[in-house]
């Protein structure tokens, strides 16, 4: 696979299928789990979205092969929901067009069907990007797509927000805590990320439309939105394995540059130009979901904390390098261990499970009102306030639920069977 040198999109991130609707929709659209009208098997599309290896995307190759693999519409003309991601189109200052890209996006939609493009930059920023060779899809060239702009901060502003928040949390004896919390703007970023993900999810689930998400590079805010949207829509992403699959697919393989973004965390020294806590922002949003839907995620806060720790410093190779290419050059798979393998050992796994989990087949629509967004104390105040009383509460919850699930029922059974060797004996005698 040779990356396209002068492709229509930066880093030749042509639209890739991030996710297709394979969940049972919460309203009365036909069940799409068995892609109707799909006569021939379509491996790149039909593989399970929960698979950790995650091959539910089109391969990133030169334009021609990828066009030839435009079997999304041909294979399943009635595929109802599809979430795609890409980088920005390289329209540039002269509003350059690219027929292949237009065709690619055009073939995704049926005739007369409309799709949404969610650009994670403001309209202004997208326009400005033209000056440096980027840009956005002009309506005239992509008539079936409706473009929505949702400005999500990335890069320096996000990193500075993170630093300010960590400073505010660490500062003792401060008077105007809420003011400091506000001026860090972190919760505003959480709210914006969740809102945009909900918008994408809503376009998919409620409008039944296909959605393409992109920002500039397609490796930061784009992934934030597509990953969150899947978590909101797709119950299979909410299991421990499914969530790992989602991370592997939407963050690692999709090429989030972990090495560049997650180097020094909030340390105020040596603020790297490339440093930005997008992955942390994602984890925070997941935490917000878990708080609003305490039964719907199979994993608990501990997993999110562990992922945060490992993204910044890890004994495992999972978050190494910036993309698949680098990982294969560095032979990461050959020379390091996988975080997932370690997490999934039975005794380790136990630590990350949410005792309240119960499979929820529905879409989980979070509230994004400010009253509903909270500071993730478990992370940001982890070393600042003791959490003993809250840990005790979780132990108590575990005790209650497990007491109910296993011990009582088992012991009931055991105690009864011990004292009840022949259940019919008594009755028979009686009769």
């Amino acid at each position: 696979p040779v990356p396209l040198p002068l492709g229509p999109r930066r880093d030749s991130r042509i639209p890739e299928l991030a996710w297709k609707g394979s969940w049972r929709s919460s309203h009365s659209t036909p069940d799409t789990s068995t892609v109707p009208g799909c006569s021939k098997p379509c491996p790149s599309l039909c593989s399970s979205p929960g698979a950790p290896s995650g091959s539910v995307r089109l391969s990133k190759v030169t334009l021609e092969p990828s066009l030839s693999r435009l079997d999304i519409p041909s294979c399943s003309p009635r595929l109802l929901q599809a979430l795609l991601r890409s980088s920005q189109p390289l329209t540039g200052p002269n509003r350059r067009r690219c027929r292949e890209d237009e065709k690619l996006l055009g073939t995704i939609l049926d005739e007369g069907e409309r799709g949404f493009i969610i650009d994670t930059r403001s309209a202004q920023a997208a326009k400005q990007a033209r000056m440096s060779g980027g840009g956005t899809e002009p309506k005239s060239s992509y008539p079936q797509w409706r473009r929505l702009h949702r400005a999500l901060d990335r890069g320096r502003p996000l990193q500075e927000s993170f630093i300010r928040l960590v400073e505010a949390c660490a500062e003792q004896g401060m008077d105007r805590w809420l003011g400091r919390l506000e001026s860090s703007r972190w919760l505003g970023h959480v709210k914006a990320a969740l809102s945009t993900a909900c918008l994408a999810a809503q376009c998919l689930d409620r409008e039944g439309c296909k959605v393409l998400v992109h920002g500039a590079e397609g490796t930061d805010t784009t992934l934030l939105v597509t990953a969150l949207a899947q978590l909101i829509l797709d119950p299979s992403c909410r299991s421990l394995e499914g969530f790992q699959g989602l991370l592997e697919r939407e963050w690692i393989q999709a090429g989030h540059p972990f090495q560049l973004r997650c180097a020094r965390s909030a340390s105020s020294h040596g603020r790297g130009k490339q440093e930005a806590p997008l992955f942390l922002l994602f984890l925070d949003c997941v935490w917000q979901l878990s708080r609003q839907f305490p039964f719907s995620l199979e994993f608990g806060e501990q997993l999110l904390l562990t992922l945060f720790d490992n993204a910044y410093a890890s004994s495992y190779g999972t978050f190494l390098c910036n993309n698949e290419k680098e990982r294969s050059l560095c032979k990461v798979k050959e020379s390091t261990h996988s975080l997932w393998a370690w997490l999934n050992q039975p005794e380790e796994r136990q630590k990350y499970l949410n005792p309240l989990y119960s499979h929820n087949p529905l879409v989980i629509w979070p509230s994004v009102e400010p009253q509903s967004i909270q500071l993730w104390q478990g992370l940001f105040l982890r070393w600042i306030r003791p959490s003993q009383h809250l840990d005790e509460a979780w132990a108590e919850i575990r005790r209650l639920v497990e007491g109910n699930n296993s011990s009582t029922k088992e012991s009931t059974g055991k105690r009864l069977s011990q004292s009840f060797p022949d259940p019919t004996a008594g009755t028979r005698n009686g009769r």
Partner: protein
Amino acid sequence: MEHIRMPKVENVRLLDRLSSRRAVVGTLYLTATHVIFVENGSETRKETWVLHSQISSIEKQATTATGCPLLIRCKNFQVIQLVIPQERDCHDVYISLIRLARPVKYEELYCFSFNPKLDKEEREQGWKLVDLNEEYNRMGVPNSYWQISDVNRDYGVCDSYPTEVYVPKSATAHIIVGSSKFRSRRRFPALSYYCKDNNASICRSSQPLSGFSARCLEDEQMLQAIRKANPGSDFIYVVDTRPKLNAMANRAAGKGYENEDNYSNIKFQFIGIENIHVMRNSLQKMLEVCELKSPSMSDFLWGLENSGWLKHIKAIMDAGIFIAKAVAEEGVSVLVHCSDGWDRTAQVCSVASLLLDPYYRTMKGFMVLIEKDWVSFGHKFNHRYGNLDGDPKEISPVIDQFIECVWQLMEQFPCAFEFNERFLIHIQHHIYSCQFGNFLCNSQKERRELKIKERTYSLWAHLWKNRSDYLNPLYRPGHSQTQGTLHPQIAPCNFLYKFWSGMYNRFEKGLHPRQSVTDYLMAVKEETQQLEEELEVLQERLANLQRSQSGNNKVKSKQQDKSKQFGLYTSNNSLANTPQEYSNDLKSFPSRSPSQGDEDSALILTQDNLKSSDPDLSANSDQESGVEDLSCRSPSGGGCLPSEDSGKDSDEAVFLAG
């Protein structure tokens, strides 16, 4: 009834605060006790009931093309927006409600007409549930240091105190009366909490009338007597809960605070809790923030910060923590006062007691605590919560702040309290509802004169009857958090204090977690218990069988019960919900969610457990009607996305138009 100018108005629109598109049309009724809105159409005919005494303000806004808007704000933080087609009708409703919401006589209040169909004996039993004599005995008084004083029988010394007051044994009637003359409103130092482990105590009073230099021998003897009642300690703390500046200003009016030089062996301490006027304004500002239409994160956080509300909550907590520490760790007695000793003093004494004594963290103990520190010691419920028409400057959310302190503690110590958040919310509701007699009037004296116990019912009995709804599943008597003193983190951990959306936005159900952990765990706990019971039954049965008896039918039926129970909460798990409006841009698309209604009602079922437990509590329901709660119409949100970007781009504008 004579105040109702307009008993019924049709075609009234009830607006959803967060989404103008969710308005419903119905009929508005005014009755002697409630405002009722009944939705038109749909078979359910949802009803919204609001007690007149819950109404805090009514605002008639400028007439628009669609009608005349009427905004009703309730004391339990519900906000109802109506649009009445005819201006004249709106005016009549407005005038009627103004009068109905401000009764002038106690007899007009709901508790005098409320009849839960209990006989006389049950009513009396209800009032006996909380017995303060029993409580003081539990604390360990009277004993060799403390005695009950009859100096205030017939309210001869202090008309806002109870008749039975505990004072140090060495304080003679002469000392008490003398001291009372040197204290605002004659509220002399009396026992609030006694710690039998180390003899330290919390006493309460009003400010001394010291002015710039006045002294009172009896008052000095009184404080001396309090110190002597704790032989293990050679001084007492005197805690003035006011900011120092306020206390000093009081000196000019002949009041003030204790001079350490005049009193032997006291340590004097200011703890700056602001006065009722500051608190009233602070709540007002915070509620304005809660009412903002699609606020940004910054609007919300700045608004919350500028309201100062959480800072005030923290000040009260800090005072309580200081006192609890003095009593439990230093073994030193504390005398607490503010100005009159019935607002801040009540808050601080009850927070300290709650931290010190696990009993007050049980359901029964909490009722006792409110009865002891608030009701018996003359907290002016009528004035503070505006039960009868009165001076609006007297109104202040004093007990609301105490209730919030308890919630903040529950957040920090999830296993420490026997009761849950719902219990607090229901108590808050009934402090304003005037449905029960407990919180009527300003003092015990007034309540006795009104014969409250003969004419009304007790809230405590009502809550106790439904106590299974108020249990905290994480509470276990053997747990470490339920033992001894609670040690919350002290200053400067401001971040520990959180906005309580469960209270101040309680009618915006869309804002709250969609799945209730408390309810789930209660169901789990109940089921476990049932299994245990079942096991016992089976074992018993087995024993019987072995004595050669027949019939396991009963066992079977038991098992069926169990599975029903199980089904109940598993179905709750997979709660449906609907998205809020994440984007205004989607309006141009036809909605494709026909099943939305069903999902909403699924949500209502679980979210509204609250109501089933207390049918007359929530704004809109009545013991007779058993109607749907309007407040849980559905989770909804305003256009909560920043949408300024959309539409600016010419491409997009074309698309929107097309």
